[in-house]
C-alpha cells in the first residue's frame, strides 16, 4: 500500500470540508446567506464579513459556504446520471452482440466528439434552466465517456478465467455480465467518476454563470461570479471568492482522484492470471 502524501491528505480534508458545507452549512457560516442589508452593500473583506458583501449587502462568505450544496449536487448528480447511463449503454453494447454494439458505439462516438458544454447547453435549452436540469444536461453529455470505458472493461474482463468458469457452470449471459463483469469493472469506473465530479462542478458553475442554473436568490458559485462581474469596478471580492471556491474544490477532487488512479493502476481485475 502506498503512503498517503501530505498534498493528498490536505485535499481529502478539503473535499470533506466542502461536503460538510453542502450537508450542514450552518455549522461553518452563522450568517443568513439571503439576509439583505443595503447599508452594507459591496464592502471589502473585514472581520465581520470575511469575504465582503455583495450588491445587496449579503454576506459573501456565508453565500460561498451555502453555495457548496448546489455545486456538489450538480457535480455528484451529473456524475451519477452519467455513471448509470454509461453502465447501461456500455454493458448492453458488450453483452448484446455485434449489431447492437456497432449501433450504440456509433452514437456514443458522435456524442463523444461533440463539445460537452455545447451539448449540455442544448439540453438545458430544451429542458429549461434549473439545478436539476443542469445535472441532467451535464450527466447526459458526460455519459458517452463512461459508456466507452464500461464497454472496454467488460470486453477485457470477459476473457478472465473466473468469468469463463462461470460460463462453464452454465451462467447465462445476463447473469455473467451483471454478477461477474460489472462488479469487477468498478474500480476504474470509480476513479473516472471522481475525476468527472470535478469536471461537472466546473460545467455546472459555467451553466449558472450563463444564467442557466438555479433561480435567484439561491446561492451558487457560478451565478455569484456572474453577479460579481457587474460590480468589478467597485468590489473585487464578490467575483474572486466564489471562483476561488470552485477552483480549490476541483483541484482537491482532482488530486484525490489522481492518487486513487495511481493506486488502481496495474491492479487490473481483467488480467487472466
Amino acid at each position: 500500500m502506498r503512503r498517503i502524501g501530505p498534498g493528498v491528505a490536505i485535499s481529502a480534508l478539503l473535499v470533506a470540508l466542502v461536503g460538510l458545507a453542502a450537508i450542514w452549512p450552518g455549522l461553518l457560516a452563522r450568517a443568513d446567506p439571503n439576509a439583505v442589508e443595503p447599508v452594507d452593500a459591496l464592502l471589502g473583506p473585514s472581520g465581520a464579513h470575511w469575504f465582503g458583501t455583495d450588491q445587496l449587502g449579503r454576506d459573501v462568505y456565508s453565500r460561498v459556504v451555502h453555495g457548496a450544496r448546489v455545486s456538489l449536487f450538480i457535480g455528484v448528480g451529473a456524475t451519477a446520471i452519467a455513471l448509470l447511463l454509461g453502465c447501461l449503454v456500455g454493458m448492453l453494447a458488450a453483452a448484446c452482440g455485434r449489431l447492437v454494439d456497432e449501433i450504440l458505439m456509433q452514437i456514443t462516438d458522435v456524442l463523444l466528439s461533440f463539445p460537452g458544454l455545447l451539448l449540455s447547453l442544448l439540453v438545458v435549452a430544451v429542458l429549461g434552466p434549473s439545478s436539476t436540469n443542469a445535472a441532467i444536461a451535464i450527466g447526459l453529455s458526460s455519459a458517452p465517456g463512461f459508456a466507452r470505458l464500461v464497454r472496454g472493461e467488460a470486453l477485457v474482463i470477459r476473457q478472465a478465467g473466473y468469468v469463463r468458469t462461470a460460463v462453464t457452470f452454465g451462467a447465462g449471459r445476463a447473469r455473467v455480465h451483471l454478477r461477474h463483469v460489472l462488479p469487477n469493472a468498478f474500480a476504474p469506473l470509480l476513479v473516472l467518476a471522481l475525476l468527472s465530479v470535478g469536471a461537472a462542478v466546473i460545467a455546472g458553475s459555467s451553466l449558472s454563470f450563463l444564467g442557466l442554473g438555479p433561480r435567484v436568490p439561491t446561492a451558487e458559485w457560478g451565478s455569484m461570479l456572474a453577479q460579481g462581474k457587474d460590480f468589478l469596478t467597485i468590489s473585487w471580492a464578490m467575483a474572486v471568492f466564489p471562483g476561488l471556491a470552485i477552483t480549490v474544490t476541483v483541484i482537491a477532487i482532482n488530486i484525490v482522484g489522481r492518487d486513487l488512479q495511481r493506486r488502481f493502476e496495474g491492479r487490473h481485475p481483467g488480467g487472466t492470471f
Partner: protein
Amino acid sequence: MTPTARWLARRLALSVLVVVGAATVAFGALQIVPGDPVHVMMGGAAPSPEVYQQTRHELGYDRPLPVRYGRFLGQLLRGDLGRSYQLHRPVAEVIGSQLWPTVQLALAAFGLAFVAAAALAVATAGRRSGWRRLSSAAELVMISTPGFWVGVLLLTAFSFRLQLFPVAGGDSLEGIVLPAVTLALGLIGVFAQVMREGLERALEQPFVLSARARGTGETAVRLRHALRHALIPMVTLAGWIVGTLLGGAVLVETIFSREGLGRITATAIAGRDLPLVTGVAVVAATIFTLLNIAVDLLYRVIDPRMKEVIR
C-alpha cells in the same frame, strides 16, 4: 476505387446520416419544448387571435407533424435553417456573419496555447527537476480552474485596474488579447502534458541519438528533431481542441462582450430562440463529423499502418 476512396465514401455517407440524425433529434426536441413557439416569437406580448393564427400559419404550426418534419428536412437540404425568433433574420445568415469573429478568437487562442505548451514541454521533458514539478502543478491548476473565472480576474486586473486593455468588445488587436489568453489557458495544461509525453518518447528514438552523435546541441535536438514527432498525438486531440474552443467561446465571448457564435448561442438559449439553437446544433454536428473524417484521413496519410485500424 482505391481502398482510401472507398473508405472516404463510406465515412461521408455515414456522416450525412449523423447530421440528419442530429437534425432530427433537434427537431424532436423543438416539439417537446414546453411553451407555445408563437408566444416565444411574440416576446411575451399577448397577440390578438387573428395575429396569433396568422403567425401560427406562417410558422407552419397548423400543419400535422409529419408534414412539418418533411418541410424541415427539405429546407435543411437547401441550406435553409429557418428564421430566428429574436433577430428576425435567417438563421444561416446569422451564423455565417458570427462565424468569423469566433474563428479569429479560436485561432489566436490556439496559437498562444500551442507556443506556450511547446515551450513548457521542450524545457521540462525528461528532466527531473524542480521546474518540472512546478510545471506539473501549474498544469493541474490550469485544468481545474474554470475559464470564466480566469477571464473575470484578467478583466479586473488588466482592464479595470491597470486599464491596459478595453473592457468590452473591440475588434482591434488589443481587444482580442485578454479573451484569447483566457481561452488559451484552458488548453495549455492538456497540450503541455501531451507534448511532454510525446517528447519523452521521441527523445529515446535512435534518430535522436544519431543527431546527438553528429554534435547537435540539446535544444536544437529537441526543437528540430524531437518536437515534430511529439506533435503527432496532437492530431488525435483535434476534435477535443475544436470542441473546447467552441464551448469556451460561449463563456469567453459572454464575459468580454465580444461578437461571435458563442455569444449568439448563449443569448439564443437564454431567450429560447429555438430555430437559432437548432441551427447552431446542426452546424456544429456538421463541423464535428467532417473534422473526425479529416483527422482519420490525416492519420492514414501520416501512418499507413492505421488503414488496418481505422475502418
